[in-house]
């Protein structure tokens, strides 16, 4: 029974692992340019396991940001995982403290996407299923990062080939599918313009402040939309 759950977990996450290989590979390759050794890069990916945040951090390292600002930016970009944590809380409630720590450690976008439904079902081996999906993802992520780091150290001047643009391209590929509603588009535009104007802020704080301004703009659009919708429905009732 346990064996089936483990295999099931691996099978469920495998397509997402494959899809993530280029991203992880790029993180590995660029981390060398940002001053890491191959083993540092591999350890970093193993311990941090947060792709977008790692890519942002590499970017910030090159502009000379301090550790404090990088950690703050990591916090902001990973805030979305609070949503995953909240949605998983109920289905993980009966596990021990230690198991909860383990299960949350690598709760990435991909692991969440694959396990959220099965975890809500009442199956006996779902702990094995979850752990196998998470560890498979983790392993592939680190492995691809390692090979990327090897390439990065073989090609020391990776920026010269325009490969640092791979990071920007990867960000575009991640963000475009998420910008669906009007509110999201406005939030993104406000954040971009603020980001450009706020490069004058010290300590690379510009991105953090730009993000906050974008979130506030999105929130304002949400509020306006809700007001519009409720006054519309009121009119509908009176007519």
């Amino acid at each position, binding site marked *: 029974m346990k064996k089936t759950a483990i295999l099931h977990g691996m099978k469920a996450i495998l397509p997402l692992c494959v899809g993530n290989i280029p*991203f992880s590979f790029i993180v590995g390759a660029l981390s060398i340019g940002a*001053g*890491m050794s191959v083993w*540092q890069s591999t*350890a*970093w990916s193993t*311990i*941090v396991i947060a792709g977008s*945040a790692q890519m942002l951090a590499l970017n910030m390292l090159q502009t000379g940001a301090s*550790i404090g600002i990088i*950690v703050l930016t*990591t*916090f*902001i*970009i*990973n*805030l979305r*995982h*609070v*949503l995953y*944590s*909240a949605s*998983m*809380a109920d289905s993980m*409630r009966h596990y021990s403290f230690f198991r*909860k*720590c383990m*299960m949350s450690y690598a*709760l990435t976008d991909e692991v969440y996407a694959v396990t959220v439904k099965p975890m809500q079902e009442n199956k006996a081996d779902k702990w094995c299923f979850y752990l196998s999906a998470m560890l498979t993802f983790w392993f592939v992520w680190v492995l691809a990062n390692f090979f990327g780091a090897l390439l990065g150290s073989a090609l020391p001047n990776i920026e010269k080939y*325009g490969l640092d*643009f791979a990071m*920007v391209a*990867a960000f*575009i*590929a*991640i*963000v*475009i599918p*998420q*910008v669906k509603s009007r509110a*999201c588009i406005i*939030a993104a*535009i*406000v*954040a*971009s*313009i*603020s*980001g*450009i104007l706020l*490069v*004058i802020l010290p300590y690379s704080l*510009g*991105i953090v402040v730009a*993000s906050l*301004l*974008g*979130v506030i703009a999105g*929130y304002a659009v*949400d509020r306006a939309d809700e007001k519009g919708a409720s006054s519309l429905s009121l009119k509908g009732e009176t007519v």
Partner: protein
Amino acid sequence: MSNTFFLMLTLGMAAVTFLIRFSFIGLGSRIEMSPRLKKTLRFVPVTVLPAIIAVQILNVDASMEFSLRNPKVIAALICTLVSFRFGLIWVVISGVASLMLLNHIM
């Protein structure tokens, strides 16, 4: 990178990431997040990433100088178009390839 700097960076990033992921799972289902907060949190990734992209492709620095006649802007537009239809690997390949080409001809 020195090992001390590396350790501090890694542990710092890992700690905040873990705390966020553990937050509600650790608390159990005792605390509910307000729907308003849930809805607003969806803006976080769509604001951080575009801001980074904009600053990167315009090569803005603290003196606020940038040029729109910049091959990165065009390459980013190509990436955006490709991302409507194709996955990450194709976006990256087309972006890097078009930037190399543009650098060559511009």
